[in-house]
Every structure is written in C-alpha cells, then in structure tokens.
C-alpha cells in the first residue's frame, strides 16, 4: 500500500479466542497505584 502502513493487525480480536487465563498481574499494581492502564501489561502466556 502507498498511503497506509499497517503497524499491527487484528491482534485484539485474535486474543479473544485464547485469552482470559487470568495469570497476569492486576493492572494497578505494577507502578502507578493511581490509575488503570492495561495496554502496557505483560501477558503471561
């Protein structure tokens, strides 16, 4: 494509099938303790 560069595909949709194991850290804990951000969390799988 000339006008559009795709950085990442349908990653979110794919994760719906495999996700939900719950082994990951709860989001508030890691650093901030005052806000809820999940996008930077690590998946344990």
């Amino acid at each position, binding site marked *: *494509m*000339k*006008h*559009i*560069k*795709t*950085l*990442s*595909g*349908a*990653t*979110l*949709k794919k*994760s*719906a099938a*495999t*996700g*939900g*194991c*719950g*082994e*990951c*850290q*709860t*989001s*508030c*804990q*890691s*650093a*901030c*303790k*005052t*806000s*809820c*951000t*999940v*996008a*930077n*969390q*690590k*998946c*344990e799988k």
Partner: protein
Amino acid sequence: MIHKFSMNGVNIALDVYSGAVHVIDDIAYEILEANHDVHSFRKDKEEIIEILEGRYTLRQIEDAYGEIRQLIEEGLLFTEDPYSSYLKTWDKQSVIKALCLHIAHDCNLRCKYCFGATGSYKGDRALMSAEVGKKAIDFVIERSGKRRNIEIDFFGGEPLMNFDVVKEIVAYARSKEEQHRKNFRFTLTTNGILLNQEIKEYINDNMDNIVLSLDGTKEVNDRMRVRVNGRGCYDEIVPKFIDMAESRNQDNYYVRGTFTRDNLDFGKDALHLADLGFKQTSIEPVVAPDGTSYEIREEDLPAIFREYEKLAVEYVNRKKQGRGFNFFHFMLDLSQGPCVVKRLSGCGSGHEYVAVTPEGDIYPCHQFVGEPDFKMGDVFSGVFDAEISDKFQATNVYTKEDCKKCWAKFYCSGGCPANAYQLNRDIDKPYWIGCELERKRVECALMIQAALYDENR
C-alpha cells in the same frame, strides 16, 4: 469504530475493535475526515473525489480510497464490535489473586498530596502485625482458586517502618507455596528514607518489583515530599535509589513520581529522572479532591497535553539515540499486549485485588481504605462481603456509558473506580479529567510506536 489523530508529523488511525493500528498519509487522513463518521464508512468514491478534488490528483484519491476499502474488507478498519454480545454470557468467576498489604499506616514523610492522610488513612497510625499478615496470606491462598501467580504488594504509609514484619510475611508465604501450588510475587513501595545495604540486599533477593517514590527535580520533589520538620528528602534518597536501580540492573523497578498543578511541566521531571540514569520511570497525575489548590483542573488540560506530547517526542529522540528509557504510560506492545478479556475488565479492585489494613480489615483497593461504606470484611472472621465484590466485578467497559463510547477503552480498561468514586460518588462513572489524560497518553504511546516502528523491526 476508528480513532484518528496527528502528532509529531505522523497521522495514525486506530481500529478500535480489531486492535489494528495504521500510519496513514494526508490523503487517507482527509478521506477519513470527510467521512465524518467513526463507526462506519459510507461515502462512495465519487463523493470523496468531489470533496478532495483540486488538492490531490484523481489517481491519488482513488488509490487511497481503494486502500481504505481494502482494509475494511480485511477487518482492519471500521470493524464492528464483536465483544459486546460475548460479554452477556460471560461469567467471570473471579478469584482474589492480588493483595495490597498496608504494612504500615505510618510514615516518616509528610508528603503534602498524600491520599493516605500522610500514612494514617484517616485512622490511627498503626503497624500491621505478622499475625494479620499471615492471616492475609491464608486468605488469598484460600480465595485464589487454581490461580498460580499471586501478587503481594507491601504498601503504606512507609513499609520499611515495619520491615521485620515484611520479612516474616514473605517467609510465611514462601513456606506455603509448594503445598498450595502458588507462586508469590512481591512488590514493595518505599520513599527511600530507611533504605540501607541490608534492606537492599533483602529486597533484591526477595522482591519481584520495587517502587521508589521520587517526583523529579530537587525543587519539585522537595516542595511536596518533606520530612516531619518540613525539610525535603531529595538529597537523602536519590543516591540510594540510583544504587538500588543499578543493583537490579535497571530492571524490575520503577521510580515513580506525582505531578500536581504546581508542576504542569512534569515532562522535565520525567527527563530529570532519566538523566539521573533511571530506565524505568512513571509520573502520575495527583489524586486529589477539588479545592486542594494543587489538584488538576480543567483549565490545566491544554498545558498537560502539550507536556505529554513534548515528552513523547523527546522519548522517541532518546530511543533513537540509544539512550532511551521507559515511561510507564508510554509503554505499549502492539504485537502481544494483554488479551481483550483483561482489557475490558479493568483493574480488578474489589474482586481480584483487595487491600488489607494493619487491623486486618479488607477494602476493595488501597484507595478505598478508610471509606466506611467499602469495608468488605476482615482476615480473621473470614467475612467477605459478596455484595460489594459483585458490584465491582460487574463493572467493565461495557457497563460504563462513557467507556462504551470511548475509543481508548481497550488501552485504559475503564479507568480507576476509586477516582470515579471520589469525584463522582459512583464507581461506574469515570472521572472525566482522568479520561482526558488517559486518552492523551494512549495517543502519545501510539505515536511513539509509529515513530519507532522501523527501528524495532
């Protein structure tokens, strides 16, 4: 649903429901703009040509239009929401997998913005006993079902004021790991005053993560983070923090600061932390009720947005120069971030994560401690209020009207229920200033990914 924006000379289009992220040129951007609808793309080619004609050649417009159409076909733009129906049948059955242990409701600093009322959380100054701590460990073992990884945070007040008990609780938890097939991971938050060689070694041997509180430059830090006698703590703690970070190979820790409306140029504080050599940083907006004089107000938003953008641009520069650092809110892994289930269910407060006070009382999270309506039970009696827990469990980005409409929902996961409660008296009604900041940070994080894309490949 899509969200598009321009920052630092890059145009980005995010396809909210698929998670796809695209860098688009000006023509494609203008076509999406001309569409006027973030949910679907209805304009046909002739309409678009009519709008853009004169500024671009026919060929260019047709090409860009074709590419947009192709992405829609491939399910990478204007994707419809596949999750909302799935949620109706979703029975989460959450278990408690994380505890925040308020190991000391006492502190050797008197930080002016402290949400814990300088350590006491509106109650008596108190230290947790080992007995309460051990009961809390039993509680989480019992309540965590098959979950293997259990997170324990030592929080305060200042946890190092009760360090012997920290050690006792860690030893107790470890002694239970094998029998119950659990893996405990510990974090400790500290203001650094009591850090010494021995404590450092213990922490490095036993703690998965450590959070070191420092606001930035000496001037900024010492305005808020003061001793009982009013003296700032910067000079005392910075050498210890540098040593601590180095001894952990600059990983598995955060230096974490708070900014208020007194330092809306907090980007320079983040850079100051980076200049001190810290590779893992975080600076957060203050949590404060209206009328404190330093709380973030609506009129501060433009300045804060500019500051985030400026920081993001410098963040990219430094990464490119090989002297990058991590800023908590700019970290984003486009290829393998958390699954969508996690992204829509929020922080887990009250049902996956709870806080335990020195007395053994249980609250939905550290920021609810001391709110009488939110006391859920205690570790001794085994009482655990299912009603409160269910209420927290029932909220997600689809139960909150604001979030449902929000493009950032899968990055934010629905905001902080504690802030929502403090500001709106409703855990389902996010604090809108917090939302504005969150959305800006996500835009910055996406811009950074775009700017570093070729480098990261």
